[in-house]
């Protein structure tokens, strides 16, 4: 592997780690709200969250490209806040990944949260537990496997990202050239040897991740597959 490939490997791991942390921070409260809310327009939010599953990545990539252009309000605000441009940068990729992988984090969590019986929470409340207390000490511990599944799916899905990165990232080594893009560039320039190495790496990583996830228990797998609720 060339030094550029190592850089791409590191960048991919960094992107997936940062995105997964951000996804969990956004996904957990969002999933909880979706699971408990009686809000009428909830279906709209659910549909929006699920959009990246069915939307071609190029659609998301195109809109992000427009939004990230230096003269837009969003890019200006980002530049003012962090002193870095958003377009064709690592920051931009993180934002893209969060949107792209959101349903893979929110959906397993939401279905798990919906499966926690109201009675459990009510009895906790009757013993004097406040809402935050109930959430951190009952809901989250009961959802350990779903949390693991959500984080793993978010991570793997970000590693497997291609279309959006191609559109909003370009192919800048060390900044936006992740493994899938480096592989694409190798194929285009007929470095089939390097392409084989990267492809095999990605294949093994994805397989082993899923293997661990499924081997962890049929219950986790069920969450991943059908979003079925379960009790631990």
């Amino acid at each position, binding site marked *: 592997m060339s*030094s550029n490939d190592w850089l791409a490997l590191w960048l991919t791991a960094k992107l997936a780690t940062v995105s997964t942390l951000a996804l969990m921070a956004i996904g957990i409260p969002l999933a909880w709200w979706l699971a408990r809310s009686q809000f009428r327009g909830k279906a709209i939010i659910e549909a929006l969250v699920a959009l990246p599953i069915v939307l071609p990545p190029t659609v998301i990539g195109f809109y992000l490209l427009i939004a*990230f252009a230096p003269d837009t309000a969003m890019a200006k605000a980002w530049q003012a806040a962090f002193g870095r441009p958003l377009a064709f940068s690592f920051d931009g990729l993180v934002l893209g990944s969060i949107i792209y992988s959101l349903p893979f984090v929110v959906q397993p969590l939401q279905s798990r949260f919906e499966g926690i019986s109201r009675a459990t929470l009510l009895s906790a409340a009757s013993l004097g537990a406040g809402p935050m207390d109930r959430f951190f000490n009952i809901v989250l511990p009961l959802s350990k496997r779903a949390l693991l599944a959500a984080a793993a799916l978010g991570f793997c899905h970000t590693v497997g990202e291609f279309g959006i990165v191609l559109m909003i990232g370009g192919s800048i080594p060390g900044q936006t050239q992740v493994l899938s893009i480096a592989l694409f560039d190798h194929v285009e320039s007929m470095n089939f040897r390097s392409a084989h190495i990267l492809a095999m790496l990605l294949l093994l990583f994805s397989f082993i991740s899923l293997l661990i996830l499924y081997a962890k228990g049929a219950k986790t797998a069920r969450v991943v597959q059908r979003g079925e609720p379960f009790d631990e």
Partner: protein
Amino acid sequence: MKFSLFSTQRLRSTGTASLAALCWLAYLHATCVAAQANALPPAQPGHASASDITLHIAVAANFTATLQKLLDAYARSAPTAANSVISSASTGTLFHQIVHGAPFDVFFAANEVHPRELLARGLGVQGSLLNYAQGQLVLLHKKNNRRNGDDIALQFTTDACKRNANANNNADALSAILQSARQVIIANPLTAPYGSVSKQLIEQLKKVKPIKRDSIVPGNTATKKIPELLIARNVMHAQQLFASSAADAAFISLPQFQANPQAGRKQSWLACHVNTALHKPILQFAIALANANRPREYRSQSVALLAFANSNQGRRIIAQHGYVLAPTTPNSANKAANNVE
């Protein structure tokens, strides 16, 4: 039962997970710094500022391999040379990335329009525009290239396909190859200058030498259509498609063919040079970019790199790789150097 917010027991697992994630991130960062240190040439003592600078170079696909050689030579000859990383794509793609704020410092394009447009938009360093090369097209085709059993293409792959062949004979040879091909791969004419020139050339050949199969192979009632065009993303992609697909011809740049003449493994490839008189010249321009997010040292380094490309040594390297040298342009480095602010 006692409930307390953030009770240590409940949070232990979450805390461990976060800690593990943070350690992972720290580890990644450490390995990256190591990887980057390995990837880049050792810093020159006394030139700490230059070694801190990494120029991001956007390069049109055809020039990628040559640029790598140019940068190697530059790093060897100039101790003050900045480090560099390369991103390669079609000229149009890179142009749009730059316009949308991509953090590039130098742009080696395959045409003149896009670098000039960047200058006009205030995204280039005034006076840094450099005509670094003139590109040449090559029509690749495969030895077992036969349609309906005829063997026309092979007859023309001799003198008429040489680099300095007579333009008329060359046009005949190209027409014959195109006729016997089922599919011809060209780079995307909308984004790649080589692609648009290839397309114009095909149109031109159709006009001057109408492609009629009947006149070449009497009695053959096969279709009179010219070969189907397959559109690749850029010339590098065109070559890759040619190597791995059933398409029997492709227009690529001469340097690519010289660097990789037999990449097709099983069948051997034949190349027919395209006489530059048959099409609009492919004048390739480079420009230093005025990236507002960078300190001015980046602009100085970019201008210095272009000056090297325009030096005798740089020009020799470019010519060696199959480019026609652009007429000598006065070295505008001094002029550009004044505009790096």
